[in-house]
């Protein structure tokens, strides 16, 4: 039994599912309260201690567990039970491939901070994402309610449509980094590049201000693939039904969509899955586009090189590891914050508008993005050599 893998998997699950996910529900309440000039949830207390409402997530889980378990008449009992399970499991297992730290040397042993360092990490995320679609479709179909069915059907069409776009919008990233492995992508982003490096090759740079040519940017996906960043963020939020794409559960139109007939912890699992997906999106965006664990302008070798004379090799690696994991979490929190801002300011799309956005705008743009990226890479290479 590889105990280090167990430890690494449990670490990310504990951090993300047990610690971060409840906090995200709290953040959603409190951030919306701040944006809307309210106080927000602060009533749940434990022996009189309220902790700014931080106990609400725990109270929620307890309440949902002790609710009555209701299955509507005519529902498919097995599917009705399995659907939330699929949704929650699919959300949780996405964390397996998200790297939250680099590779560190402790004496003879090497530690890389990712639960499963597989070659096709991003494809795994896509696969798990399509698995999550089953949860919503089955929930919608099994409930024997017309509103649930509408929600389920909407969810299925939306999720499969955006799956295509989601995959195509990151092709540019594959091309830049030359890999599908999330750990390699994160390593590649731990470097810097000259902003106008490729323009210099063509001599265009002479017409621009001198200082512009010397700006060094971290080699993050967001700088190399700005369009890809926006498209992927859109697509992955739509794929996970996050607002403003929460059409399958649009409560003003179709009541609660696919989880109309769910109550208690069955609903709780959908609820949990949704908040875990927020963290998955944040983690993935961080790993692909925001440099993962890397600290801008401070590559790993430089940190360890600076710390090694002071603390020795093992300690230097440990400190670097702590710094990296903290950086990663910081970026994840930033992305969560960003999603919440979108959540609380944007109205919901209409169904046809969302489908148009997918098939008529994002899909052609992502294909074009791949070819433009390819052209630039090849031109730079042929002129550079």
């Amino acid at each position: 039994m590889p105990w280090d893998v167990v430890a690494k998997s449990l670490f990310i699950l504990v951090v993300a599912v047990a610690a971060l996910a409840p906090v995200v529900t709290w953040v959603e309440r409190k951030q919306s309260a701040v944006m809307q000039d309210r106080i927000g949830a602060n009533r749940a207390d434990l022996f009189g201690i309220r902790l700014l409402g931080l106990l609400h997530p725990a109270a929620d889980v307890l309440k949902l567990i002790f609710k009555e378990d209701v299955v509507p008449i005519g529902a498919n009992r097995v599917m009705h039970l399995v659907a939330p399970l699929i949704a929650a499991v699919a959300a949780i297992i996405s964390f397996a491939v998200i790297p939250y730290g680099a590779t560190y040397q402790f004496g003879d042993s090497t530690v890389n901070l990712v639960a499963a360092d597989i070659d096709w990490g991003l494809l795994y995320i896509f696969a798990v994402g399509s698995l999550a679609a089953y949860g919503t479709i089955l929930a919608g179909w099994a409930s024997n309610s017309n509103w649930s069915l509408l929600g389920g059907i909407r969810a299925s069409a939306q999720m499969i449509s955006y799956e295509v776009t989601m995959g195509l919008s990151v092709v540019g990233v594959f091309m830049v980094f030359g890999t599908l492995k999330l750990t390699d992508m994160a390593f590649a982003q731990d470097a810097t590049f000259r902003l106008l490096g490729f323009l210099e090759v063509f001599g265009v740079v002479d017409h621009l201000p001198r200082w512009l040519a010397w700006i060094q940017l971290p080699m993050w996906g967001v700088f190399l693939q700005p369009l890809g960043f926006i498209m992927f963020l859109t697509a992955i939020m739509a794929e996970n039904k996050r607002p403003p794409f929460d059409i399958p559960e649009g409560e003003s139109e179709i009541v609660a969509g696919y989880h109309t007939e769910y109550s208690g912890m069955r609903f709780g699992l959908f609820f949990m899955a949704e908040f875990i997906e927020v963290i998955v999106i944040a983690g993935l965006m961080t790993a692909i586009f925001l440099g993962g664990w890397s600290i801008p302008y401070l590559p790993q070798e430089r940190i360890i090189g600076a710390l090694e004379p002071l603390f020795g090799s093992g300690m230097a690696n440990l400190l670097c590891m702590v710094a990296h994991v903290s950086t990663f979490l910081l970026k994840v929190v930033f992305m969560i914050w960003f999603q919440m801002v979108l959540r609380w300011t944007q109205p919901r799309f209409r169904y046809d508008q969302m489908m148009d956005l997918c098939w008529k705008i994002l899909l052609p743009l992502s294909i074009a993005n791949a070819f433009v990226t390819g052209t630039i890479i090849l031109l730079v290479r042929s002129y550079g050599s």
Partner: protein
Amino acid sequence: MLAEYSGVLITLVVALIIAGALLTIHVFVGPKRRFQEKLEPFECGERQIVSPRQRFAVKFYLVAILFVVFDVEALFFYPWGALFGELGWHGYWAMVVFTIPLVVGLLYEWMKGALEW
């Protein structure tokens, strides 16, 4: 080789345990006061007029078919993108040729109105 996948297995097991445990506790712990009206599927306070098990609008199935076409083609993009550096201009033009039918297909659907709602 397979050791890399053990992380996936462990997270899967942990996820199943978490979700399964929550569901099981819920099923056994909650109160059970059931009656006909409570168990009826939600229809805004009325009786269902049509069953949700009927034949649904065909447009949604059309999306599913489009998905199959485009997702299979998108799959070819992934290895191409990852190996792009090694393939060079040859690979680039090969992909252009591959993409043309894809784009033509998309345009055809668009003109045919398959993307309209």
